């Protein structure tokens, strides 16, 4: 007879789904060459998967690449912390449990599991059994194993020169290759669950723009803007963008690191300095990324990953719903969601890197009418750290599940298809 009973920590009602265990991202130190992906643990609805041995189930999913060694945490959610739990897999063709090597999970609320994905794409499953290795199955985690697709990125450390009759003003990005490499390492960790890696090729780039080229389309402009920062007008025929695109490297995503980036806003008959975006993407293959030295690199990398996500069609850029990821400062965005999983998503709107300007109701920006109507209180941080992983821990999830009735979903399949077709002639 068993010495343990399956003890629930809470009273369970008929309408409540019993969840003895859950899975979450591994929180410990991740050794070099191993991974701790954000998993897609949204809800229990039946979903579909791009391919695999299972026709899609109700389980949470973690994405890894062939050959990866990865960690995930098991949480004893509604079960005694001393309950004897075993981890096992019946998908021996796809994965191997490395730790705990005997399958017996330690006592405690949150316990790591280390596993290796084998060299075969597909879907495996990690199962948690109660009491012994063949005991009742009380939870599972699907493991989506992908081949690695790469995208070449030209990273331009850019100097912008503005020339007028009497002088030349210039600004150069202060980034260096080492810093860009560090950023890209973080970016690639974010994209690893969907089997995408960005490979960087560094180029020193200089654009020279005549003042006449800037002002010929726009009658007047505040001349203090013409100092070598990149100015965007949010209109057609962007003169700076045109110059940058001339430097695009063929069959690569082009990331232009520039010293400063600012929108020019029309006030009466003159363009004056406006918003300073943390980065912009033209939804195709050009990203402009300014120096924000005071912001921690992890957050900058998440912003770059977000922009690269646009290149892979991760937000609905092809419809009038525009940024289907949620804009907390756009009153007209009724699709906005604030649940913890939405906030964890890579494509969640991150317009400003400074979290303090985006605290919602009591912050600098007023909240939208929709939220007012619902009486919502937006009091979480917008910098990607208030996502359920604990204080100051960021999350950047790319969805793998394709849940029904949500066209922002299924990012795994969408991104891989977009990457495959990124440079196709037709």
């Amino acid at each position, binding site marked *: 007879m068993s010495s343990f009973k399956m003890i629930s920590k809470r009273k369970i009602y008929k309408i409540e789904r019993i969840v003895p265990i859950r899975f979450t991202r591994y929180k410990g130190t991740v050794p070099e060459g191993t991974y701790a992906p954000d998993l897609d643990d949204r809800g229990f609805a039946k979903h579909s998967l791009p391919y695999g041995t299972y026709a899609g189930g109700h389980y949470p999913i973690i994405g890894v690449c062939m050959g990866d060694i990865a960690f995930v945490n098991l949480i004893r959610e509604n079960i005694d912390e001393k309950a004897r739990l075993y981890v096992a897999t019946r998908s021996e063709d796809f994965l191997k449990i490395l730790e705990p090597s005997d399958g017996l999970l330690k006592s405690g609320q949150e316990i790591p599991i280390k596993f290796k994905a084998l060299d075969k794409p597909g879907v495996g499953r990690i199962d948690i059994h109660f009491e012994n290795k063949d005991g009742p199955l009380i939870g599972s985690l699907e493991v989506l194993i992908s081949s690695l697709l790469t995208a070449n990125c030209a990273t331009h450390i850019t100097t912008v020169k503005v020339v007028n009759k009497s002088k030349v003003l210039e600004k150069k990005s202060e980034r260096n290759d080492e810093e860009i490499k560090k950023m890209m390492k973080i970016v690639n960790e974010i994209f690893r669950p969907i089997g995408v890696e960005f490979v960087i090729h560094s180029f020193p780039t200089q654009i020279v723009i005549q003042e006449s080229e800037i002002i010929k389309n726009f009658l007047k402009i505040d001349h203090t803007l013409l100092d070598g920062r990149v100015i965007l007008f949010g209109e057609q025929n962007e003169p700076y963008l045109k110059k940058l695109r001339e430097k695009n490297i063929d069959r690569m995503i082009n990331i232009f690191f520039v010293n400063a980036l600012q929108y020019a806003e029309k006030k009466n008959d003159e363009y004056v300095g406006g918003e300073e975006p943390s980065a912009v993407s033209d939804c195709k293959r050009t990203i402009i990324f300014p120096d924000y030295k005071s912001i921690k690199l992890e957050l900058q990398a998440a912003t770059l990953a977000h922009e690269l996500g646009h290149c892979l069609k991760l937000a609905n850029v092809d419809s*009038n719903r525009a940024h289907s990821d949620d804009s907390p400062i756009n009153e007209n965005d009724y699709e906005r969601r604030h649940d913890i999983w939405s906030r964890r998503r890579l494509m969640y709107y991150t317009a400003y890197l400074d979290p303090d300007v985006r605290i919602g109701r009591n912050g600098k920006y007023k909240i939208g009418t929709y939220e007012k109507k619902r009486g919502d209180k937006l009091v979480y941080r917008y910098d990607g750290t208030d996502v359920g992983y604990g204080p100051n821990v960021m999350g950047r999830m790319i969805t793998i599940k394709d849940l029904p009735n949500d066209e922002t979903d299924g990012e795994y399949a969408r991104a891989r298809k977009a990457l495959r077709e990124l440079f196709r002639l037709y």
Partner: protein
Amino acid sequence: MYSILLEKLLEQLNYDAREIAEKMGKEALPILLKRKNAKSARERVLVLECLAKIKGEEAVQALIEALDDPEEDVWNTALDLLYIANSPAFISSLSSFVCESPNAVIRGEVAKILGVMGAFSSLSIIKAQLAKEKDEEAAYKMILAVAKMEDGPERKKVLENLNHEDPRIRYETIRHLEYINDGKLAKNLLPLLNDKTKVANIGFVQKPIWQRICDRALEAIVFLTGKTLPFETGDKVYDEDQLRMARGLISSG
């Protein structure tokens, strides 16, 4: 001198190798062909990129062989490059991929590549595969390939999508007409010059500029007729006068 440089760049996985290979032309072939089966998939991809710059039958042969590579990056790069580097000498071997490849992406894309090549001798193979193709996306690519090579029911099917209720499909079909690239088709775009549905953001994500179906239709009319308009075209939004001028391009025959 270039040979040593090319070898070094390939070892470093430096994409400047493409430029050097192009400068060297056929002289680069022995170096590239020696490395086409390199252990690293990234090097195999770069070798293909270089071969596509050289073109010629040996390069195309290597690109076709790469369609059997186990790495997705490699066969996908080969597909991209076969659109720009191909040769009539390989119509037969390419056609076999349409009916024999277990990979639906390869079956569909190779059919489209054969269309671009004007490979009329492959038509019967593509049609036979189309009749039994189970992958919807691959099947549509085969329809496009056939529609490019002959004015038959497949072309009619593509044109029907210009009236599709989903604006994104109408918009995408305009691009398919550019693939078919027959000037006679330009007149089919005339009604779409009145279609003001906004579909694609051609600006920045935060400051979107929505290109409408009529704007995309104007650009396709310019492409298909080979005529020019007195203003810059491409990835833009056009005013009523400009749309009127595009109508004029068709009515002027």
